């Protein structure tokens, strides 16, 4: 028996975090070039404000949000824009995407922005949201959703409850843990700014039960702030307890509707890293131009957490960690459960880069030969969305869209728990990831066909009615002529 414990939804798995949390946060080396992809956040790509050969200063805005969901981008260094061209990006699995390339002049001359530092209590919540947007703040938990957009869509009558997610459940990632240990005050400051921006009555900071040092630091910071609205909630260290929907279920004992958002049940969830980034922006005027990145795995000589400027090449971070070991075999951005595997390291750190795993065969435990499903049901025991992965798998071949929809394929969060426990070694998460867009498209086609039918029927009825009215009118006009006068 492996060291696993099956629970009703979720897994207790080896965290692999000790190696990267031994040393404190260190600053990553500066490099000559910084590559800033314009589409590194969810939503629409940002629109460049600079052109090649422009000189930029550190923290200067270099791209503004497109209308809709988008975010500001700032220069992490001072220097010169040398190109705006497609460059490989990690969030595009190494495919090129339009990026601003900046040559570092090494002087870190700051962009003077008098309006940056504000006392958030003095401004209205709406202004606070706008201000947060101006800092280029996006969710640092991995999805990089623009924070201001999320705040705006979450505003509700009495203010939503704020949930700060410090439950870093994925194996290997420890950037939030060290952040909570070393910069708990930033988190609490950010929490208060968010409470203000949301008109929110209270804030819950969720933290896992296996990080006592971070808990202690956070408690100290919360006590020091003496803000009665902020409380700490310890949650069990179960993967994927830190998933937004799962965490909300754990903390508030309420479920987010399958077709809705946390805001629908009056909750806004933000990562603790996002809160700290907001604190740095509002308090120090530093926009989101750097983040903590965990570099770990048996494939690097030394593991650690690095304060890394956005745009730093992966290879530079790896060099900071003493380079690859001979056992290096797979490069992963994110955790070992949901991270994406990358073909090369000539990629920039983006706002969503929480962790880089240089994995060796020891970390990976190669998958065995895929066997047929024996319907053992281990997968359904660990599925945090309460799905039956064994049935979904059955209905994938051949693709049975009705049954897949009935069994909730679109509710799969792709956490990989089912994969992890499958004795037949079936790559279930991968199959579901591939099938979800197909099913969504098919359901959309059904919906639009229904809508088209309804519009067609309505039009025909309207035309028939108009025709009838027209005839009636004609008949009325004719009648007086034909009727004999008496």
């Amino acid at each position, binding site marked *: 028996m492996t060291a696993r414990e099956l629970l009703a939804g979720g897994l207790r798995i080896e965290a692999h975090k000790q190696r990267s949390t031994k040393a404190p946060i260190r600053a990553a080396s500066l490099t000559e070039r910084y590559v800033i992809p314009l589409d590194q956040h969810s939503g629409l790509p940002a629109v460049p404000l600079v052109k090649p050969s422009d000189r930029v200063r550190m923290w200067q805005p270099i791209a503004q949000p497109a209308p809709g969901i988008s975010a500001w981008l700032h220069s992490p260094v001072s220097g010169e824009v040398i190109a705006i061209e497609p460059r490989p990006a990690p969030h595009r699995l190494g495919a090129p995407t339009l990026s601003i390339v900046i040559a570092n002049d090494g002087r870190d001359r700051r962009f003077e922005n008098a309006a940056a530092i504000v006392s958030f209590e003095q401004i209205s919540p709406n202004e606070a949201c706008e201000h947060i947007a101006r800092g280029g703040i996006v969710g640092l938990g991995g999805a990089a959703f623009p924070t201001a957009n999320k705040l705006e869509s979450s505003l509700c009558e009495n203010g939503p409850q704020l949930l700060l997610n410090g439950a870093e459940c994925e194996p290997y990632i420890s950037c939030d843990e060290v952040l909570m240990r070393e910069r708990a005050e930033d988190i609490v400051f950010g929490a208060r700014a968010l409470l203000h921006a949301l008109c929110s009555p209270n804030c819950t900071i969720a933290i896992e039960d296996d990080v006592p040092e971070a808990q202690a630091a956070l408690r100290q910071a919360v006590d020091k702030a003496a803000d009665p609205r902020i409380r700490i909630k310890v949650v069990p260290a179960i993967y994927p307890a830190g998933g937004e929907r799962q965490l909300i279920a754990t903390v508030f004992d309420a479920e987010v509707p399958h077709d809705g958002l946390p805001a629908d049940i009056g909750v806004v969830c933000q990562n603790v890293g996002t809160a700290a980034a907001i604190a740095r922006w509002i308090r120090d005027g530093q926009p989101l131009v750097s983040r903590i990145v965990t570099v770990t795995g048996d494939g690097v000589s030394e593991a650690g957490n690095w304060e890394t400027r956005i745009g730093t090449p992966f290879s530079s971070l790896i060099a900071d960690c003493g380079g690859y070991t001979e056992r290096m075999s797979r490069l992963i951005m994110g955790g070992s459960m949901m991270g994406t595997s990358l073909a090369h390291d000539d990629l920039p750190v983006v706002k969503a880069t929480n962790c880089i795993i240089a994995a060796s065969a020891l970390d990976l435990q190669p998958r065995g*030969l895929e066997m047929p499903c024996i319907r053992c049901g281990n997968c359904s025991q660990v599925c945090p969305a309460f799905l039956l992965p064994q049935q979904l798998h059955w209905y994938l071949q051949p693709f049975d869209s009705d049954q897949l929809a009935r069994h909730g394929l679109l509710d799969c969060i792709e956490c990989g728990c089912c994969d992890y426990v499958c004795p037949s070694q079936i790559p279930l998460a991968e199959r579901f990831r591939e099938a979800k867009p197909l099913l969504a498209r098919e359901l959309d086609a059904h919906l639009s066909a229904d809508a088209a039918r309804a519009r067609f029927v309505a039009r025909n009825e309207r035309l028939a009615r108009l025709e009838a009215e027209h005839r009636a009118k004609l008949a009325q006009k004719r009648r007086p002529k034909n009727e004999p006068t008496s």
Partner: protein
Amino acid sequence: MTFPTAPAPHAVAHDSVGRVMRIVIYALLPTVALHVMFFGAGLLVQIVLGAATALISEALALRLRHKPFEPFLKDGSAIVTAILLALCLPPLAPWWLVVSGTAFAILLAKHLYGGLGANPFNPAMVGYAVLLVSFPVQLLQWLPPAGMDIEQAKLSMGETIQTILTGSLPSRLTWDAVTSPTPLDALRTNLKMGMTMAEAQAAPIFGALGGRGWEWINLATLAGGLALLQLRIIRWHIPVAMLGAIVVCASLMYMIDPGTYAGPIFHLTSGASLLGAFFIATDPISAATSDRGRLIYGAGIGVLTYVIRTWGGYPDGVAFAVLLMNLSVPLIDRYTIPRIYGHAR
């Protein structure tokens, strides 16, 4: 520097179908050991014959279906089928019984439907049902359990093998002298002859709980089953529902008329109740798949087992009960999809 890429998750638990099947086989060992203690080495010969047949049939089917040999021959599922079927057969049953039953189970009940993971019916129970319908006489030739002042003809290992292979006993013995009905069978026959329950259970083959010897074998099965539960190879829903249903049915009828109906303890420790609950009905491939579905499935098997045992014409009801419930699995699965996160209760 370039690296190979792969889809997430990047690390998975080290588990395999083979490991699951091996643990099931180990968990059956106490049952097999006690069986041999009470009924002689016949079972071992049956298992060897059955396992060999299972592997040969499996290989043949894989060959015909153009599937790779190694992973499927090594997964152990054919061996589990063979052992379960062998446990259901009388220890001295002629060789062609176990061979034809196992071959039928593997070739028709398993591979005709698509092999491992695709068989709607439990292969071992299909094999057993076919034998029971085709050769009822041979399947009733059970032996009396050893020890405990019951007459038992001692056969050496050589004589056992010879009996199984030739189908005839050593010249010093006759079938009538060697065989004895199973407790369930004996009870049925005695009750049919008009005896009361007390008279019927006075026969020497009845022990404190169920049948002599049988009660111990069943306790060994219970131990193996609990080990499977502990190791999370099976979950509690099917065994608890099935045994619970048997106890409820038996208690109810026993309360109505203790003179005609045997009590719940007798039903639990006789026949294949425990083997069925922990090792046969829990075969996940042919069982319902959600927790609620498994409760319904298990309870259905329990009720049908009791009904067939008590009012049917066969020595035990487990095999047919399992097959009947296998038949209703698609229906059960359809109506027991669990509530999904974020959907209305």
